[in-house]
């Protein structure tokens, strides 16, 4: 024997259905927002990689220039002594260090660009996708069922002027059955 409906407030159910619709929209917006941020993140890493690659080229030019400056200094003076090249050597070491740093950053960016899609797929995508499917499928169907049930209760309450809380049957009984 089916259990009767036990609904103390149809209005509360209507409120819940409306709140659920707001929730569904909010979740959908949030999931879309995450997708946008993920895409921005991937683009951002590619942009940083391009900036570091340009920095590598600049640093290579600087190293070439510093080497030339050092080489130009490595000629004996008029008195036959070798000039002090401390500053040029230090400048070259610094330029080489900057180049190594930029090259290392390019390697890091490339490593992240290669790994990021899989890491995102592992940590987020299945969860976001599952929830999106749930919103579009089970939730939408569940809300439709609830909406029809509330309609039935409202029809039943309309037939019964003294409708009040407590167990009752769904679908609503015919008027003659209520007497």
């Amino acid at each position, binding site marked *: 024997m*089916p*259990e*009767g*409906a*036990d*609904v*103390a*407030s149809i209005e*509360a*159910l209507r*409120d*819940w259905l409306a*709140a*659920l619709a*707001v*929730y569904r929209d*909010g*979740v959908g*917006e*949030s*999931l879309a*927002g*995450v997708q946008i*941020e*993920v895409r*921005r*993140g991937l683009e*951002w*890493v590619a942009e*940083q*990689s391009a*900036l*570091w690659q340009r*920095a590598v080229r600049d640093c290579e030019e600087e190293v070439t220039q510093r080497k030339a400056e050092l080489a130009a200094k490595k000629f004996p003076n008029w008195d036959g002594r070798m000039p002090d090249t401390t500053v040029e050597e230090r400048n070259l070491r610094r330029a080489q260090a*900057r180049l190594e*740093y930029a090259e290392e*950053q390019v390697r*890091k*960016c490339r490593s*992240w660009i290669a790994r*990021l899609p899989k*890491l*995102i797929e592992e*940590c*987020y995508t299945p*969860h*976001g996708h*599952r*929830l999106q499917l*749930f919103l579009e499928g*089970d*939730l939408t169907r*569940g*809300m439709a*069922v*609830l909406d029809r*049930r509330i309609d039935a209760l409202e029809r039943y309450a309309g037939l019964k002027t003294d409708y009040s*809380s407590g*167990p009752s049957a*769904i679908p609503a009984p015919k008027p003659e059955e209520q007497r």
Partner: protein
Amino acid sequence: MRFGASRSQLYDAQKTARARWDAAAETWNDASRRDFEEHVWGPLDSQTSEVLRAIDQLSTLFTQVRQDCEFNP
């Protein structure tokens, strides 16, 4: 790659929906409520929590990416 706004939106929506569910459940106590809870609300709530945790992991991941890759010559 800032996930704070989306996470907050989802967290707030879940919090509000939980409160609304509790209010509705107080006035609704039959088989259809249990069915709705089992097949709709429960899975929706738990999947939302899973996504919140996943967003936290994404956020941690991209924080690391930012630290490693940001252009600061």
